[in-house]
Structure formats: C-alpha cells, structure tokens
C-alpha cells in the first residue's frame, strides 16, 4: 500500500529477510510451487516456444507503432461510450481517479489487483481524501489489512503463512464470533469471501488494472482466478481501468497469442479462470454493468524507455515467472527489493522508474544465472538489461569506491599480460605456501565477503601458464619419449 522506497537499503532488507523464519518458511514454497507447474504446462503445448516468439514479435511491433495504436484505442473506446485519460506521472493519475470518484460522490471503491495502483500509491491518496479503498483480490486484501506492500506481482501475500492470516482476520473482523474456527485455509477463504461480498455490493466505484488494452476494439482486459476483478468492474456505478501505456496490443488475435503464454508462465494453468474483455459502459439494454467506463493510461517514464535498450522491458506482461525462478528472490522475497516491482523484472524496471541512484542495488544483486530470461514468455533479456544499468552506474561513477578501485587494479594487470603473469605467479606462490598445511583459508585479508561464509581454497601453487611452458620445454627436450606415449 505504501510506496516508501527502501531499495537503497537492499542489503539490510535482505539481511532481515534472511533472518525472518516465517518468511523463509513461506519462500521455501515459491520454487516448488511454481517451477514444476510452469514446466508441465509448457511441456504439454508443443507450440509454447513458438508462441513466445509470436508474443515477443507482437509487442515489438506494437511498441514501434505505439502512438498510432494508442490513437486507435482511444477512438474505439470513446466510440463505445468510454472515457480515456492520459496521465504523465503518478500525481496526474491519482488526480484523474480522485476527480471521477468525487464527482460520483463515491465513499467506497472496490479494487481489483493493479500494480499501477501500487506504483502511483493510489490507496493512501484515496484514503486521504475520505474515500475508502477496498482491495478485493484475496492476497491484496491480506496485505492491505496488514498495511504492507505486495511481495510478488501475481501472489502479493506469498510471504505470509496461514497463522498470520488468521491473526489478522481475528483482529480486523472483530464483529465476527471470536470462537470461530479459522485453522484451515478453507475457513479463512470463506470468511474473506463473506466479508468482501458485502463490499462488492456496496461499492460506488470499481477500479481494476489491465493486463492488456486492445486497439482494434478499445477494450481493456483483466485476467484473474478469483473473479474479484469481474465483480469489481460489474457491480458499481463506474469502472475505472488503470493501465500503463505498454499494455497495448493491436488485435483480438494478437492478445489471444499472448494469453496462451501468460497463465502457463505464471501459474501453469492453460488459461486463467476469468479472462474478461471490457468495452465501454453498460449498453442501453444491459441489465447489469457499470454506468461509466474510464481508462487511465499512465506514462510515468515509460515513453522515455521506448527510446533505448529498455524498450524491451515494455514487453513485460507481469506473469511473475522471472521471480518464481530467481534464486535471489527465493532467498530474500519481494519486500527486500524495496519498492513495487520485485524480482528480475523489478531489478530492471525499478531503476527506470525511481532513478538509478536509488535503484542501483537491484541490477547488481543478481548472479546472472540467466534463468529469468530462460523462462520469460516475452523473451526479455533481463540479465542484459541489468548489465545495462551496471554500465550506466559505472559511467556515472555511482559504483562504490572500493569496488571501483578493486576493479581498476584488476583491470590494470589484466590488460598488461607481461605484468599479470609474473605477478599472479608470485602471488599464487605465496598464497599457496601460506595455505599449504590446511589446503584452504577460513579468513583472508580483503576477502571478508567470501570467507565470512565459506572457506577459500589455497592455490595449488604456480600458474598454469608457467607450468605449461616448463612442461613444453621438457617435452621438446625428450621428443622421442613423448611421441611414443
């Protein structure tokens, strides 16, 4: 809910997360929960990798023609009776939403899951002007009542266990009988369903995100499993869609291509339960549906990303596969990343949205194992883009002085082979002698980062290059023997 940025404190955040036992318990289920399901879903569809290529190409084409598709979307949405608003930044978007809510005299708004809402800090803003925002995605509801931010883009409460949820429900649903049984996830779900059902029916305005916007028809699309997004957008007087401008796709066929890789990559389902295409407000004959339909299209720095390498990030469809497969995410969870978007996609997107000064930790906190890129349905080269940020950081001298100095010393020798070879031979000879008895070091000067957690092997002594040359000299001295080997 809050958008306080703690990304510059990533190391401290990570340390706390690593020591947080309930969190570690929850995180231990992330990999097993998602990885096998995605792999099985991909395995069952022979065209899966071909669809990834298709999805990438569709988004590349759309981004290269984004202005024109946006114009078409706007025209079609208006033709269907909808309103389209453009927001330059977060403040702009918040003001547009607040104006609509206030004009309609809204007191309660229900909300479907929206990362854009998190990005612009909408809930705090609505509450400040006296409008009660109610998150209706179960995971979002759980973190809202805890005053937390999501820790995952598709499973916002993945950091919690059921005991924590039970405690929160007993605290917040104080009007319910205290002796009720909440020991099982089913009873927790039933209670949330009951509480939120009343909120759905009472809400004045429903706000959802958008997984896609379709230019051909002026349609916004949400993809959910719970049905909360549909209730949010169907029951109130007005439906407001929050979308960032890269959500656009040209046609219904195009979005069908991408939908085939979305759920499979996210949860391993062939298709999510509810894929809902909304176009304009309720029609004159419709017995239900919202009376007004607004789409707020947010830029917030994205149009600038179109101009360079980072354009590739704008293909992201927020499936979460990158974080589901990330060893760093598995270790520290989403909150450690310190802002709205965690995991590899967050490591690339965050510096673009909050600035490289504040966001620099994230693209550095990666082993470049490449698993995110391997599973990304949109084939976003995430390690390459994290490296892009490291280059920006290096160019702008934001790299910490010790690191920069170390790298400088290393580069000085590496670029001077005639110095490097004797220097390494001598250094390794000395280190080898020192470590010979034990074979390894439990601590080493200047290597505290390493030896704090693991031993460092003593070098065997000498360098390969020097020994090889010595051996070749011997071989030349005894060619006959060598030939008969």
């Amino acid at each position: 809910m809050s958008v306080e940025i703690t990304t510059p404190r990533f190391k401290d955040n990570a340390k706390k997360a690593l020591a947080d036992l309930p969190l570690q318990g929850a995180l231990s289920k992330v990999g097993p929960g998602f990885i096998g399901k995605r792999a099985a879903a991909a395995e069952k569809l022979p065209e899966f990798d071909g669809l990834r290529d298709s999805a990438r190409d569709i988004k590349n084409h759309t981004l290269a023609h984004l202005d024109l598709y946006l114009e078409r979307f706007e025209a079609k949405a208006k033709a269907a009776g909808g309103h389209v608003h453009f927001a330059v930044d977060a403040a702009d978007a918040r003001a547009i939403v607040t104006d609509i809510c206030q004009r309609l005299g809204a007191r309660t708004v229900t909300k479907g899951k929206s990362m854009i809402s998190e990005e612009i800090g909408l809930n705090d803003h609505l509450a400040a002007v006296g409008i009660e925002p109610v998150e209706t995605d179960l995971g979002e509801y759980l973190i809202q009542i805890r005053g937390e931010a999501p820790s995952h883009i598709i499973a916002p409460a993945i950091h919690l266990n059921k005991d924590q949820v039970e405690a929160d429900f007993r605290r917040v649903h104080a009007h319910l009988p205290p002796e009720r049984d909440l020991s099982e996830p089913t009873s927790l779900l039933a209670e949330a369903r009951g509480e939120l059902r009343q909120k759905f029916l009472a809400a004045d305005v429903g706000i959802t995100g958008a997984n896609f916007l379709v230019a051909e028809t002026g349609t916004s699309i949400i993809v959910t499993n719970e049905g909360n997004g549909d209730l949010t957008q169907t029951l109130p007087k007005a439906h407001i869609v929050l979308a960032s401008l890269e959500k656009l796709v040209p046609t219904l066929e195009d979005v069908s291509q991408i939908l085939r890789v979305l759920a499979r990559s996210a949860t391993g389902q062939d298709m999510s339960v509810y894929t809902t295409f909304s176009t304009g407000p309720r029609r004159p004959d419709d017995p239900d549906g919202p009376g007004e339909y607004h789409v707020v299209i947010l830029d917030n720095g994205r149009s600038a990303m179109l101009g360079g390498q980072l354009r590739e990030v704008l293909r992201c469809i927020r499936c979460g596969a990158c974080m589901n497969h990330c060893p760093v995410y598995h270790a520290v969870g989403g909150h450690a990343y310190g802002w709205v978007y965690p995991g590899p996609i967050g490591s690339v997107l965050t510096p673009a949205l909050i600035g490289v000064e504040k966001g620099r930790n994230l693209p550095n906190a990666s082993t470049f194992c490449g698993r995110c890129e391997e599973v990304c349905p949109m084939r976003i080269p995430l390690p390459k883009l994290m490296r892009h940020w490291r280059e920006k950081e290096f160019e702008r001298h934001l790299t910490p002085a010790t690191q920069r100095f170390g790298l400088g010393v290393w580069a000085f020798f590496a670029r001077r082979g005639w110095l490097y070879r004797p220097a390494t031979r001598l250094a390794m000879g000395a280190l080898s002698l020192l470590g010979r008895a034990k074979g390894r070091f439990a601590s080493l000067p200047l290597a505290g980062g390493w030896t704090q957690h693991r031993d460092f092997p003593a070098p065997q002594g000498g360098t390969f290059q020097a020994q090889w040359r010595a051996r070749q000299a011997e071989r030349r001295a005894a060619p006959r023997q060598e030939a008969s080997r």
Partner: protein
Amino acid sequence: MTAHTSPHGARHPRVGLFCTCLVDTIRPSVGFAAAKLLEDAGCEVNVPPQTCCGQPAFNSGDRATTRALAEEMITAFETFDYVVAPSGSCAGMIKTHYPELFTGEPDWAGRVERFCAKVFELTSFLVDVRGVTGVAAAYDGTVTYHDSCSGLRELGVKAQPRRLLASVEGLALEEMKDADTCCGFGGTFCVKYPDVSNAIVEKKAANIAATGADTLLAGDLGCLMNMAGKLQREGRAVRALHVAEVLAGMGDEPAIGEPAEKGAKR
C-alpha cells in the same frame, strides 16, 4: 610447434587452450586435465600468453576495459582452429557477448563473428565437435554434478559432461535436486552481496549432501570454489573437483581446498 598428423592422415586441429584466469592462478591441474583430454581427442594443444576474457569487467559495467581485453583475447587466439576453455562461463562470455562489444565497428564485425564461431566449452567441444563418446579413466566413487548457469543456459552444456562421466570406470552419478539452479557464486556477486550468496549456496550444499555422493563435480572453477568452500565450512566430507580432472584420470589429486601433502591419494 608443428602440426601432428593422425594415423589416417587428417591434420590434428590446432586448439588454443584458454585456461581461464581462475584455473591459471588457483588450480593449474584443471588446465593440464583439459590439455590431456584435448590431446587424447586428437588435438594439438597450444597455450598462448593470456590473461582474462573480461567477464568481471563486463558484469561490472566497465565496457571499455572489456572491449580492450576482448581485443587481446581475439588477437592471441584467432589463429587457432578452435578455442577451448574448461569453463562454460568464460566460453559463454566470449561466444555470446563478444559480438555486442564490437557493435558499430564494421572493421571488427566479421573477425569477431569468425572468432566466436570456434570458441567452445571443453566437454561440449569433446562430445559435439570431436565426437568423443568415452574417456579412458577410472574413478572410484559416487559423484553428483552441478550444472553451472552460463554453460547450461548460454551454451547448452548438460548432456555432454554426463555422457563422458558415464564412461568413467567405477564412477556412479547421483543427481542432486535442482542441479540446474544457481549456486550463488555469480562472480563479484558473492562478495558484493555475501549474505544473499550464502543463503543460495547453503541450499546448494544441502542438496549436494542429500545425494550421499562423496564427490561434487562441475565444469566451472568459480562455482566449484564457492560450493567447496561452503561444504568445507559446514564440515561436510564431500570432495570437489573440476569435471575435467576426473575425466582425465586425475581424480585422485588433492581436491579443491584439500591440503597438498596429505590426501594426495584418498
């Protein structure tokens, strides 16, 4: 050095062995193991003067240094038929990333492309290029194999080392859980974010230990030093060796982090 000729008359391919800076400085025996495997596969092995492929600079965002080191690398090795490294990480660095370092330099474009086409990781070179199906080596033990990330994902190294290990007499392979998950090394990552790196390597060490294998093998010395260092810190009796050492019949050398005097023979 002149090219040898094989019994059936074909010229022995001239291979430039890029030993990698870690092998050069920490564990030269891996370089000798690689050289033996290449010679056994009918190659003429050369070790030209070399330093580093530039990966540490590349991943630190220092493109200028990387570009300079890449140029030295290419100049030193481009006359060979093949360039082989006992590391998926370094071979992957060259093969998949060198081209982008020279974008906008038309003079280099063709040269870099030709160079990258002949760069290989050791085990994949032996199996895929040289058609090696087995090695004449013995190792008495149960091993588990960690798939290092760059070799696996940039170069598709997965079946090749296992295929060669299957031919080692006396060796049994026990696969670990999540063999293809990162060990947490990540080059400078492990010292920049030591706590996170440690959390990752702890899981890896537990998965290794759970196999009951007495030996850990991998194709990258960086990952091996990380995992071996953790296993030793935890007091686990698992030896760590580069896969080339076992394939070359040098598996009885003191393992990574073992003292040189004692333990030379198990």
